[in-house]
């Protein structure tokens, strides 16, 4: 008997003509009576998904953003209803799609623990039984009986994680929780997922962090554009995922006329992440040096153009903004093609999915010639021998430089 069996799941979302999820107004109801033109377009988020998870098994769920991972988790946790196909579950399910779901700022920490816990399917008695563990884990002392709106962000997260870490159901669905938790919670989660075999619990884990995923999961399902691309050994799925990523990501070039971001003066030709040898890279080990290359064509010479590249991490935090070619500062550029590469040193980035934006400006007067946001995506992958050392848990911070430490020791 399987803990989870998913059979031929298909999920369509209706899109209105504007492309947003559809909801009506009373006006539409009357308008629809004589105007059937506004036909709804459909978006297929998942198609023909089938897999099984045995009791005690941990399965990874891999795919690019928009591949359907969250939709699949929502269907298994019953938040969304499949368009066709079915899900069979054996045992209680807790889905951790968001930590702190159901928290209300005006309620005290204790009241929120009850509310949030019962939303995740815990009984009142279970929550009371675990209250001491939860308060210990949260470690927020006397604030526990204060309204949550007086909490610092850190305290809020600790309390939310404390509830989440004590859920005790047969089936646990985790969506990227390893990416946002603090170190203690990360460790707890990892321990928890490791313990599933012993307790006969089943876990589905979504993560962009292939290293952790391969460590924790025996099997993995790779989704690509809503379809099953691979289902089998986690290491194989991870390897294939990185290949998909390479095929799609790492480069954006504008070959067709009219599609490129441009103005009268300059047109963007391409943006990509590359190696010294010139190969486009979509996945980069954080232990390796790589380049970000911007190529543009100056259509009208004589303007002192300043191309710049912005890197954001997966929480949309700007890691840095860089002007790619300092020797051209304030120098009018003659017409022609330019290719500029900024070399990013090894051991600077932290692991995760990064997004690159390009823009070209000029001064006097300040002019934005073009701006293309998040056009290239690349994955910075965890590696051995970096600043991480032997530590396996979550490491905070937007970058993770390998620093030169000096240590003085007295006895």
């Amino acid at each position, binding site marked *: 008997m399987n803990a989870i069996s998913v059979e031929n799941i298909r999920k369509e*979302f*209706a899109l209105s003509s504007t492309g947003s*999820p*559809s*909801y*009506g*107004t*009373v*006006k*539409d*109801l009357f308008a629809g009576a004589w105007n059937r033109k506004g036909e709804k377009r459909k978006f297929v988020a998942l198609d023909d998904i089938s897999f099984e998870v045995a009791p005690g098994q941990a399965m990874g769920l891999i795919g690019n953003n928009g591949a359907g991972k969250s939709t699949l988790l*929502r*269907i298994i*946790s*019953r*938040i*969304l*209803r*499949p*368009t*066709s*196909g*079915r*899900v*069979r*579950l*054996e045992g209680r*399910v807790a*889905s951790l*799609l*968001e930590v702190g*779901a*159901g928290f*209300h700022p*005006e*309620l005290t920490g204790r*009241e929120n623990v*009850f*509310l949030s816990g*019962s*939303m*995740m*399917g815990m*009984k*009142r008695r279970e929550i009371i039984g675990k209250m001491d563990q939860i308060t210990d884990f949260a470690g927020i002392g006397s604030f526990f009986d204060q309204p949550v709106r007086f909490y610092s962000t850190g305290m809020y997260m600790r309390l939310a994680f404390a509830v989440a870490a004590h859920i005790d159901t047969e089936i646990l669905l985790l969506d990227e929780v390893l990416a946002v938790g603090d170190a203690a919670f990360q460790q707890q989660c990892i321990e928890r997922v490791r313990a599933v075999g012993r307790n006969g619990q089943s876990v589905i884990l979504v993560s962009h962090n292939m290293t952790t995923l391969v460590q924790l999961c025996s099997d993995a399902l790779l989704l690509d554009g809503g379809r099953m691309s691979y289902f089998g050994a986690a290491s194989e799925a991870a390897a294939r995922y990185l290949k998909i990523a390479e095929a799609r990501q790492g480069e954006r070039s504008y070959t067709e006329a009219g599609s490129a971001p441009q103005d009268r003066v300059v047109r963007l030709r391409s943006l990509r992440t590359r190696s010294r040898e010139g190969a486009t890279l979509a996945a980069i080990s954080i232990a390796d040096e790589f380049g970000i290359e911007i190529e543009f064509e100056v259509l009208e010479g004589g303007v002192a153009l300043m191309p710049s590249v912005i890197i954001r991490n997966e929480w949309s935090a700007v890691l840095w903004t860089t002007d790619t070619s300092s020797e051209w500062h304030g120098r009018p550029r003659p017409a022609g093609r330019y290719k500029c590469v900024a070399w990013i040193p090894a051991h600077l980035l932290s692991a995760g999915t990064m997004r690159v934006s390009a823009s070209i400006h000029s001064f006097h007067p300040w002019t934005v010639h073009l701006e293309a946001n998040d056009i290239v995506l690349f994955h910075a992958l965890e590696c051995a021998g970096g600043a991480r050392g032997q530590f396996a848990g979550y490491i905070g911070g937007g970058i993770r430089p390998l620093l030169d430490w000096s240590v003085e020791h007295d006895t």
Partner: protein
Amino acid sequence: MRVFDATGTPLIEELAEYRQYVDLFRFLTLRDIRLRYRQTLLGVAWAIVQPLLPMVIFAVIFSRFLRPETGGIPYPLYLLTGLTLWTVVASSILAGSTAFISNYSLLNKVYFPRAILPMATVAACAFDGLIAWAVAMAVTCYYGYFPSWWWFLLPAVALWIVVLATAATLLAASLTVAFRDMKNVIPFLVQIWMYSTPVLYPASLIPRPLRLLAGANPMAGPLEAFRACLFHSTPDWRVIAESGLSLVVLIAVAISVYRSVEAHLAERA
């Protein structure tokens, strides 16, 4: 073993499921009650003020200009009894009609039987109603209408009101998901409903042909029964029976609208 597919859970199974979520229902109700009275000056006294304030206003206006014939019952008392019941229904609908759309982030992150949200709002309003009810009973005694055996029927009236409020709120919340402008329409509908119900005036004021339709209003029955219990008048059993039937129809409509909306709640709310 549980199975989820495109058709959703059968009604019987879904109803059975609510038993597992009694604790959540309780915490949501407590949340609503706590949030309403925390950091307010009057606190729980608001529960009494809510029907009392309109009573004073209507009593001043109507007893001056309209002088309604209430069969010997003091008009302010007549008003208070009507408003006590009506306030539970009206405030449930007004507070609960946005129960789904204002909890979108929750509905999209956690599964629980969705109707628990509006049900908890109704429960919190019913808690207020209970306080107001106690005050109304005291005022009734003050006017010289003392407890009788009829008072044993009052729990049935209370149950009727809670069931009615739940069905109407569930319907309002579901319609608000399907049509966003219902949020603006519902307050007007609630007003119209109040004026077409003998809350402010006696049923005898209704023109005879329209009076035949009184039973189509599921609110007419509990009002008639409530006043009969308190003022020892003879109830109009025909209106109560018809009104009960209307309630059954309302429940059926509310459940079927809710279930059709529930299928895509996390996508549309």
